[in-house]
């Protein structure tokens, strides 16, 4: 029953939907935006999420978590898409937790996971250094001297970087002039000396950060997943990231479509509901079919995160590629079918278009992942 939710997962889905439909949504989003909220999310909402245990969902029980599946967490990601709920969940409770869980030492796990699960510690992932996702391009250098390192370089588009306590940073280790080994991950406290974080307001009214590291002092104990092992660990983290983004994009698609469908049944022109026009009907039917396909691949890819195997990377990229394409279609059709009112800031539908564009781009867009599917399939 791989392609059905089990009871626990259904429960998480239902409660996420119930909670977010009443406590999040476009009006909260609009308020945050209009108040120019610098954290990019509502503290009150976050406290409630913590009370519901959401930051603990992926944390193993041994470390104070709930030890639920990615499928379960994916239901929250999807609903966060439908209700435009911004929070540190993605950066910290999905990516941060996964990174530590996948590759942290016993000590790192004990030190970090319980605090993340409790919603007290925020992590963020600092990977990209170019405008278009390219995790293999790493110009950040960790200069080794003895058992210590000195980190310098710049990271772009770090989601929630400006509110994080610790960053997971990819860098190349260098020894004098010479580069040794390949990419390595470090856990870097944002309070360290030499770190400058600049918040960049985005089109979706959330934030990303540009982070400059200048001779940031690091000890060996801050290495995550071993020297030279960064690419492998990162690749697994990015599969997780993209699968949860796919779930969010699915949520965005479903909700944009739901709103559009409702509008088609309400809006009258030429004396009839515009939903009675066959040209719009066929476009709606096609879009609905595409969204149904997304549901299947997202669930399959989430399931695969819980039981990683050779297909996991391909499924993650397939899910991201497909949901990118369909979310773009769904949000564009939503604006178009809403007509004039869809163009206005006053109306909510534009928020979905904006958020979808950011979620599409993050960690590789449709073309990036289609290309990756080709590569993984050997052509």
């Amino acid at each position, binding site marked *: 029953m791989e392609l059905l939710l089990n009871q626990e997962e259904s429960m998480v889905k239902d409660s996420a939907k119930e909670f977010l439909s009443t406590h999040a949504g476009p009006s909260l989003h609009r308020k945050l935006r209009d108040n120019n909220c610098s954290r990019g999310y509502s503290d009150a909402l976050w406290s409630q999420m913590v009370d519901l245990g959401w930051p603990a969902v992926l944390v193993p029980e041994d470390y104070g978590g709930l030890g639920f599946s990615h499928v379960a967490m994916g239901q929250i990601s999807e609903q966060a898409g439908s209700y435009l709920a911004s929070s540190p969940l993605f950066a910290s409770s999905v990516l941060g937790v996964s990174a530590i869980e996948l590759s942290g030492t016993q000590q790192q796990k004990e030190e970090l996971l319980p605090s993340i699960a409790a919603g007290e510690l925020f992590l963020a992932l600092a990977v990209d250094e170019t405008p278009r996702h390219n995790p293999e391009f790493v110009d950040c250098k960790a200069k080794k001297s003895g058992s210590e390192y000195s980190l310098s370089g710049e990271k772009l588009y770090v989601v929630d970087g400006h509110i994080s306590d610790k960053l997971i940073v990819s860098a190349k280790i260098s020894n004098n002039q010479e580069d040794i080994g390949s990419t390595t991950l470090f856990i870097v406290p944002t309070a360290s000396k030499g770190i400058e974080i600049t918040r960049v307001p985005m089109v979706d009214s959330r934030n990303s950060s540009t982070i400059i590291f200048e001779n940031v002092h690091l000890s060996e104990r801050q290495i995550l997943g071993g020297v030279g092992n960064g690419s492998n660990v990162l690749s697994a983290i990015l599969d997780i990231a993209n699968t949860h983004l796919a779930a969010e994009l699915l949520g965005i698609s479903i909700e944009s479509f739901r709103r559009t469908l409702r509008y088609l049944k309400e809006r009258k022109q030429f004396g009839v509901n515009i939903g009675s026009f066959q040209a719009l009907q066929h476009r709606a039917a096609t879009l609905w079919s595409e969204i149904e396909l*997304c549901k299947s691949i997202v669930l399959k890819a989430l399931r695969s995160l819980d039981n990683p195997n050779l297909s996991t990377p391909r499924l993650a990229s397939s899910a991201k590629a497909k949901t990118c394409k369909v979310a773009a279609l769904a949000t564009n059709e939503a604006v178009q079918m809403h007509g004039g009112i869809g163009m206005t800031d006053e109306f909510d539908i534009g928020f979905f278009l904006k958020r979808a564009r950011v979620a599409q781009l993050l960690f590789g867009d449709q073309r990036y992942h289609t290309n990756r599917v080709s590569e993984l399939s050997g*052509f």
Partner: protein
Amino acid sequence: MQDLNDFRLETRDWLENYCPQSMRTPVVDEIEKYCGGRRSSYFSEDQRAWVESMISKGWIAPTWPREYGGGGLTKEQEQVLKEELSAIKARSPIFSSMGLSMIGPAILEFGSEELKRQHLPKMIRGEIRWCQGYSEPNSGSDLAGLQTRAEDFGDHFVLNGQKVWTSSADKSDWMFCLVRTDFDSGKHSGISLVLFDMESAGVTVRPIKLISGASPFCETYLDNVKVEKNQLVGEINKGWTIAKYLLTHERQNIGDIGNVTRSHTLSEEAVESIGLHEGRLSDSGLRTEIAEWQIDYECHQLTMERVNLEIESFGVGNTSAMLKYYGTELNKRRHELEMSIHGGAALGWGEDSIARPWLRSKGNSIEGGTSEIQLNIISKRILALG
């Protein structure tokens, strides 16, 4: 649960004994497929043995009642049987049987006891092959506009009219046929479903040649064809309900159209024919399109799987129109890509031409209800637009 496990072991044992090795290999040519019917013959002795063993077990129709020759299995047992058959890659004993997949279930659901006893055992034994009489020249998408008349002569009807797009009518023995029995009432309320022998006087079959050169469909002319009243399925003038039931079945079958075992995937074909440059297919545009197709194909396969699970678990699902629509569009895309992969080599007109299945695929989004009709169904029945 213990029972089910016992059943699995017994089944495995039985298959080990009764499924010949040659029946566990992929079908290479259409000619190897046994479809049953008066004009059929076995391709090999192994095939005969396999089909006859399955018939005797009743596993040709695993869940049908034993009294009609079925296996009398539960849903769960049927699932186990499917898994075991698939595990040894056993061939289907009877291929593309309209009897087993379409009219059989309809007779079980709507037919009289007499009809069940008369027709079901012969379907299962492969003695009678069935075809369907739905579309007419002037009622294709508008199926309910059908004009074939069945006039009431007391103990029998007399049929006059013309049916088209009848799959394999020229190879079939009986037809289940939608006819108009009430000429005055509304479009949907005067339709009945009747059964008749294709050897009846007045039945003429003419194969239709398609653009691919193949003739999988026929026109069937009905000229004063006599049909006994007991060959009416369900109530008179209530045939449209059964027709809708049958169409949903048909869509699901055709939606499965891309789901053919092939020795090569598209990308392998492309690599072989075009070659790699730095590990990538040299034609980058085609590479992208193949990858997109592959993603969509996987999504569609998963969706068929998911929808079936949902139907089993929750009994919901009105999605066969979507599966049919998307599956046939995917199959057309597949063949377009195949043509592009092979370039000039695809344009020859030999018997094994790559262009023939390409042309054949164009019909997928027309036969069994056009893509437009499927989109209408989605709009109206699922999205409640209109």
